């Protein structure tokens, strides 16, 4: 009986969130008065934009560090790469690749730093990674606002603020659609950028392959129990740092892909919400803080963004106020992350209580004999 209940509970937590979102979206789609083709097109666009960022969250979850809200660090590294590429005026896919090359070392350094910090905050990685991303955002702003154009020379004066230094708030990227326009096909009015999808497929294969390497196994072991892994001879702290470094670098590439699709860079707060939306998308896909798979990421991205597109319009048609839909989707984004975190933590606490109870029963048995 108890076993059944547990199994049911597991299934519930696994699929209740995606189902709930599916239901909300199914109700909201007719209300929003969007056409099917438009919605398909939008979802394809959103998948192209966001799934790489969402996939970058997988490894730290595997290593037991929860959701890496510090992926914003990677996103910021990616943006710095793009800023330099735009200054150098290199366009198209080569520009994007060069941006990735410029940004990778920055992402590695930031990721390594984040890894060290998170190793000092075991048990509260998520809040620490979030605060760390806010902290680094300050340094990022300092770098772009005061160092760029003054200490670091810039070629194109048009990118700088009128006072002569500091990067402008919004930049048009010369590399826009660099990956999307490689191998673009059109099916029934829905444009599918095969090039970008191939890159996303590549990262999926990388993740699958990585899981079966020695390091991948180590990470999973560390995720299951740090004490046990340590006595099994795994360098726990090093493994955790590696998982964060890989996640940060992937997030950096993810942000580059995201921005090449959008085409404009919101220099100072473009990365702020990256972690929130990526985390929400992943959790909507049925992932938990302790377990996340590639299908979770892809399904979650599609579902979350379906809701994201539909909700403001639906809200507008129902209530006559556009802002309600806007607030509702922000509420849902934050709410779903909150709910997933609560469910996970609650379950962990209940498991702990049950362990203690069974231990007490075991301990009491011989005594009662």
């Amino acid at each position: 009986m108890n076993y059944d209940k547990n199994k049911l509970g597991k299934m519930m937590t696994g699929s209740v969130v995606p189902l709930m979102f599916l239901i909300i979206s199914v109700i909201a789609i007719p209300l929003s008065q969007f056409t099917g083709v438009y919605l398909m097109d939008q979802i394809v666009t959103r998948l192209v934009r966001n799934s790489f960022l969402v996939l970058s969250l997988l490894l730290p979850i595997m290593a037991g560090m929860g959701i890496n809200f510090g992926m914003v660090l990677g996103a910021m590294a990616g943006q710095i790469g793009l800023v330099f590429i735009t200054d150098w005026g290199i366009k198209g896919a080569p520009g994007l690749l060069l941006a990735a090359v410029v940004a990778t070392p920055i992402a590695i350094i930031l990721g390594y730093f984040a890894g060290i910090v998170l190793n000092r905050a075991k048990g509260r990685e998520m809040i620490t990674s979030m605060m760390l991303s806010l902290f680094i955002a300050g340094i990022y702003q300092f770098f772009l606002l005061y160092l760029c154009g003054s200490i670091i020379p810039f070629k194109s004066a048009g990118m700088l603020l009128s006072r002569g230094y500091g990067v402008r708030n919004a930049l048009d990227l010369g590399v826009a659609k660099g990956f999307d326009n490689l191998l673009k096909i059109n099916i029934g009015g829905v444009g599918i950028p095969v090039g970008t999808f191939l890159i996303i497929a590549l990262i999926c294969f990388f993740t699958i392959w990585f899981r079966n390497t020695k390091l991948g196994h180590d990470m999973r072991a560390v995720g299951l129990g740090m004490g046990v892994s340590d006595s099994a001879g795994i360098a726990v702290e090093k493994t955790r740092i590696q998982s964060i470094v890989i996640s940060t670098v992937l997030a950096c590439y993810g942000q580059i892909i995201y921005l090449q699709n959008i085409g404009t860079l919101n220099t100072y707060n473009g990365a702020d919400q990256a972690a929130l939306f990526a985390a929400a998308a992943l959790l909507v896909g049925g992932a938990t803080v302790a377990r996340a798979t590639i299908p979770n990421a892809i399904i979650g991205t599609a579902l979350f963004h379906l809701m994201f597109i539909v909700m403001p319009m639906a809200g507008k048609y129902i209530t006559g106020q556009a802002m309600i839909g806007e607030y509702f989707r922000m509420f849902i984004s934050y709410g779903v992350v909150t709910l997933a975190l609560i469910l996970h933590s609650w379950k962990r606490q209940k498991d702990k209580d049950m362990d203690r109870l069974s231990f007490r029963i075991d301990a009491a048995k011989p005594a009662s004999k």
Partner: protein
Amino acid sequence: MVAIKGFIKDFGWPRIIIGLFLLALFVAAPFFGVRVDTSLNDVLVRFGMNAIMVLSMVPMIQSGCGLNFGIPVGLIAGMIGAVVSLEFNLVGLAGIVVAFIVGIALAAIFGFLYGLLLNRVKGDEMIIATYVGFSFVFFMNMMWLILPFKNPSSVQGFKGEGLRVTISVEDYWYHVISDFLKIDVSKYLIIPTGMILFFAFMAFLVWGFFKTKTGTAITAVGSNPDYARASGISIDKMRIVSVMLSTMLAAIGMIVYQQSFGFVQMYNSPLAFSFPTVAAVLLGGASVNKASILNVIIGTFLFQGILTMTPSVINSAINIDVSEIIRIIVSNGMIVYALTRKAR
């Protein structure tokens, strides 16, 4: 030498650096044409405005619930108190007392539910509190639009429904507490005695509360849960009491802030408080599981001091507005530093 080392260790490097920085700013101020009395006035006013919110961190830290990143929950209770009081068109002392009563009552209810939730997620309170705060703000954003408020000065003018983003309390209870027994030292320096006395009163209440049986039990739960359980203290109950207390203090803090500021800021405004408030108490020397009233006073003074002095002094000194970035780096850096320190 040993004594100095011990003092540095006790006081902590971050506080010493920031304290010296603040002192340097005050010394440098006259040379750059910044009036010291104006600055002092600003620091005092901001201290009074923010101190109670920072004080609201103490009960939850003491009970082991960690830093209250979910402070928006309490702030929103205070905001509701304020708009309800405006709705009744109450002026002066009556207005602010009703705002307090409504705010505190709602904060007690919110705090109770919030406490129940936090009891289910022991160990992950901080990240969950952050997200609960965020989600609650956006939920209430919808409510501000939907709820049937009628007072013309608080609803959006052109539609007559939905609250404004900033509601002026100028004609209602502006500076009711601030101007109580205020001392005009000069044209530029007016000491808001009322606000400081009110904070002292609140701080005294909290201090007194932690001397009672319940207060001691809360501290015991925070510093050693197993020991507390063994001595027959209900951990969950004590945690709920502390969360309720924190939430109520946050609601009071918000109303005090509003009456001094002159506006009730609605919608996303509570989000702007959560990290700076946490940073302030940490700057004062609190850790993730230990905080005192002294920490609150030192922390608020240092934090607000930096906030007021950096824009005026640094901007007139080097003509670059780095104050916002200094604020981000100091406050968030302080929180990261506190989180990475070993518990106990």
